[in-house]
């Protein structure tokens, strides 16, 4: 036991990643029916990320037909050549290969989280240093929360394509912590290309990248002297405007490149409308754990466009305010925005929630605030209830036939409520941390929000 603990303390990362890979592959090998069963779960696979629909698109693509003609496939075209290289997942070998691919993605994401946590941007930005920054978790714990989180684990086995998006978002954040504007923009462009909503992460991730590029020159060499320091600051610190240009140009160029590549692969450009209008206009109302589908099944057609606008505007409305209000802690702004996307996106799935919950652990130095002043335990308990009751009600509605759609939607409301409580607790903790720096006397007091 002690020898194991020592071994773990000496090489945490390799051991963690190896055990995560082993667990995923073992589950796929020991329970061969499990991946396909999970692929069919409405909680994990939505119309825009389902692995089964990807197979349908792949079938059409491999026969030289337009994969978007069938009205089933809504996913990014560049996934098709990638997956056509893999053996068919209908066979045992092909299934293991596809699970292995997603395992690699999960490990890459976990590695990104590790690096982000290790970079220390959570507690320190160019304009702010949290007094609690030393209380954060070890980077390896954050990676462990991602890898062993049941939501991520199940998602890995179910293989929805949003895992690619998550991986590229985390990669983009990781590049931002190193102030690499081009790489950040590149990764984020891939994420936005594959699903639309990561576009909303552009402001906070841009801010983080900008913040890091401001911070980078502030560790001058001793011999530089006063004038030298001033010179470096003035030459390397970009102005917000110039940074925006530096950041947006590669972003747009990458996006353009990806879209051109996609057009070259496919016989027509219908993919553009299918890929980007699907989340915008919600043509497929297959149930998912999000808040949209039930609302729009009940909607009269005359109001549809209006409410689509309202729902999207609502999601849109968080991006800039979070970036402005949490400008001192750009990573917090990103995580908060990720949470909003995980809860409010049109085709919500538990994989995004798992990734977001792991990302909140990046700001783990703020957790003592939440547990003292807010309700994380009841919220997590409600999350547990909802994740058990959700499949039960789905079963009662669609298989047993003794329930109805209201059962499942009611529980997805509880699910969203629990997530929202976690989200508000998170934002509260970020703001309170800043507030306590401004006014040290309030530390530990009960605050009344008005």
């Amino acid at each position, binding site marked *: 036991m002690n020898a194991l603990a020592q071994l773990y303390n000496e090489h945490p990362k390799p051991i963690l990643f190896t055990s995560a890979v082993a667990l995923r592959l073992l589950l796929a090998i020991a329970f061969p029916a499990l991946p396909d069963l999970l692929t069919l779960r409405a909680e994990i696979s939505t119309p825009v990320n389902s692995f089964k629909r990807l197979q349908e698109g792949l079938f059409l693509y491999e026969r030289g037909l337009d994969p978007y003609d069938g009205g089933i496939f809504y996913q990014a075209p560049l996934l098709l050549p990638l997956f056509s290289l893999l053996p068919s997942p209908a066979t045992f070998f092909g299934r293991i290969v596809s699970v292995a691919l997603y395992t690699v993605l999960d490990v890459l994401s976990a590695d990104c989280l590790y690096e982000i946590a290790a970079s220390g941007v959570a507690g320190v930005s160019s304009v702010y240093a949290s007094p609690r920054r030393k209380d954060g978790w070890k980077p390896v714990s954050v990676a462990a929360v991602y890898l062993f989180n049941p939501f991520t684990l199940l998602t890995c086995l179910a293989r929805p394509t949003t895992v690619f998006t998550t991986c590229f978002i985390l990669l983009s954040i990781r590049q931002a912590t190193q102030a690499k504007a081009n790489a950040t923009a590149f990764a984020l462009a891939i994420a936005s290309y594959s699903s639309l909503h990561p576009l909303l992460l552009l402001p906070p991730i841009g801010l983080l990248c900008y913040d890091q590029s401001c911070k980078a020159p502030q560790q001058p060499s001793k011999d530089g002297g006063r004038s030298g320091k001033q010179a470096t600051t003035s030459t390397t610190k970009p102005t917000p405007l110039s940074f925006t240009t530096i950041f947006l140009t590669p972003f747009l160029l990458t996006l353009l490149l990806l879209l051109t590549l996609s057009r070259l692969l496919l016989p027509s450009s219908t993919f553009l409308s299918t890929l980007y209008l699907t989340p915008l206009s919600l043509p497929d109302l297959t149930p998912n754990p999000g808040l949209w589908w039930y609302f729009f099944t009940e909607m009269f057609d005359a109001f549809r466009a209006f409410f689509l606008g309202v729902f999207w505007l609502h999601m849109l409305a968080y991006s800039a305010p979070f970036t402005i209000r949490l400008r001192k802690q750009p990573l917090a702004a990103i995580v908060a925005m990720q949470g909003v996307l995980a809860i409010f996106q049109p085709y919500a799935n538990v994989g995004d929630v798992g990734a977001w919950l792991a990302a909140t652990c990046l700001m783990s130095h703020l957790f003592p605030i939440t547990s003292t002043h807010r309700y994380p335990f009841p919220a997590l*308990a409600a999350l547990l209830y909802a994740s058990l009751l959700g499949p039960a009600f789905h079963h009662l509605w669609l298989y047993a036939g003794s329930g109805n759609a209201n059962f499942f939607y009611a529980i997805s409301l509880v699910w969203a409520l629990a997530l929202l409580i976690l989200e508000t607790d998170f934002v509260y903790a970020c703001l309170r941390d800043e507030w306590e720096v401004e006014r*040290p*006397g309030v530390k*530990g007091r009960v605050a009344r929000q008005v």
Partner: protein
Amino acid sequence: MGLSARLLTLRRSPVLLKLPPYLSAACIVVGVVWLLLLPLNEYSRQTYVSENAILPGQVHTYFGGSEHNVFRAFRQEAYDQKDASEGHRNAVLGRIMRESGLKVAEQPYSYYAAGEEIAGTNVYGILQGPRADATEAMIIMAGWKNFEGLVNYSGVALVLTLARYFSRWSIWSKDIIVIISPESTYGPIAWVDAYHSTSPIVTATQNISALPIKSGALQAAVAIDYPVGPWGHRFDKIDIQYDGLNGALPNLDLLNTAVSVASGQMNIGCSLHGISGHKDSYNDRLRTIAAGLATQSLGHATGPHSAFMPYHIDAITLKTVGDGWHDEMSLGRVTESLIRSVNNLLEHLHQSFFFYILLNANRFVSIGNYLPAAMLIAGSFTISALALWVQSGRAPLPEKTPAQPTDEKASALPPMELVKAGPDAALVPKPALQSVDRHLFLPALTLLSIHLASFIPLYLLTHLPRSFLPPTLHALTALSLLLPPTLSHLLPANTRDLQTLQSLSLLLLSATLSTLATLNFSLAFLAGLLASPLAFVRPCRSLPAAVLSYAVLAALSPMSVTYGFAAWYWGRGMGLEGVLAEFARGWEAQGVWTMGVVWCVWWPAWVGGGVGVWGGVFGKRT
């Protein structure tokens, strides 16, 4: 926000911290009292037929006259097969069906559970409805042996007579399927499983052949249980059996139709769960509830109809009980009228309730009125979990020392700490800064291991041969009783960590039970009630208190309840071995979850509670 701030201040109040055990107790008491109130008129309703298309008892029934002679002939034919082999019997039954114009096929099946083989061959026929397009079908069936193991001569003969009689009508808008299975539990299960699969089902524990001929979507099934030979027997009442596998129930409309046809049209009384002298008093209603609760929570098949519920096919068994003046023709006419009503359906039964508790044949409680009972009991565990969580995060209170009179001022103020931030500085009371870190890793890992370990007893008790089952249970009991003290002794954890473990385990139990309550109310209610001591046990500092708490836990443990149940069942001549083998067969062949709930939900929670109890004695001090 004012409310949440007030809640936060409440969180610190000492009164609130003492409250949870009382609150949990109140939840459990209210839950039980709630159930006891259900038989009252105020909380239950008269049943009513909700589906307009079904029109129960609106048709004249013509089954009678010369059909009686046909029935007697078929009954004699059936009786002649009493010593024949199954193959010969099936050939005779198949010939009779074929002569009536049905398409006939046979389906062999075998299950292997508890070291024994259960094998047989179903024989069934399809009567193609003259107005049907083979998209829908209804079923009449009888087991050659009924659920009690008696040979069902009259039931089989009645089904065959009805098939011959129905084949001469032109009104059928659905196909009619006639099934004669060799016995009343596994035959129907094999048949309905095969009906809904495209290839033969062959696994290590079952080998079910595919059905050579099929019809459309099954709408409803009626089974007849009338185990009387050629000498005949006039019955008093029809007992309607309705419990499906895993406590699923048929749509209440089917039951209502059967009751209204039998009592309204044919003047035959109906009973439930074999309670014959139902006087509609409070006690009789409560007895009916209790009987329903028992069969539903056990989840095992109660007759040939049970197999159909998992596939969302509404099914009931009509069983004749008592001595009276109704004969087989009345039963035939009830069935005819019932089938005519189902034939009227335009869509699958969906109007009425799927979740109900029956008080008598025409009074019920709907889900909204009874579900809170199970939810309250499940909720009591959440309350305890929250309380334990708060306790585990609290620093141990310092020993109170009498304040010295000299420094009264100093002791009145809490110790302060200087907090500096840039140019500002402030004095902050020290206790506010103290927070105790919970160690989550070890408790969570232990809990996960306990849950994974729980598959071992489940596997052993469902896969071992019959004769090994009782010794296995004894061994499991001994090991389970030793496990909690050993765990809390061996784990490098202090009392608070073990408290965290107990809290998480209670939370999981509570969430699982409330999920279960939506699927099988009775099982969740009874499991919650039996597990209720877990909500009250706390780490005990002294050894005698720990032993006492643990004795209470052990008295209401999964093992002791299994023994208790077996002892209660011994009266029926099964013995411990028989009861355990029946459980194993239920899990393996019928797909009943009860064993899973007992061993993989309750048992881990019980171990978690036990670890919590011993945590006070064995937990490492910080």
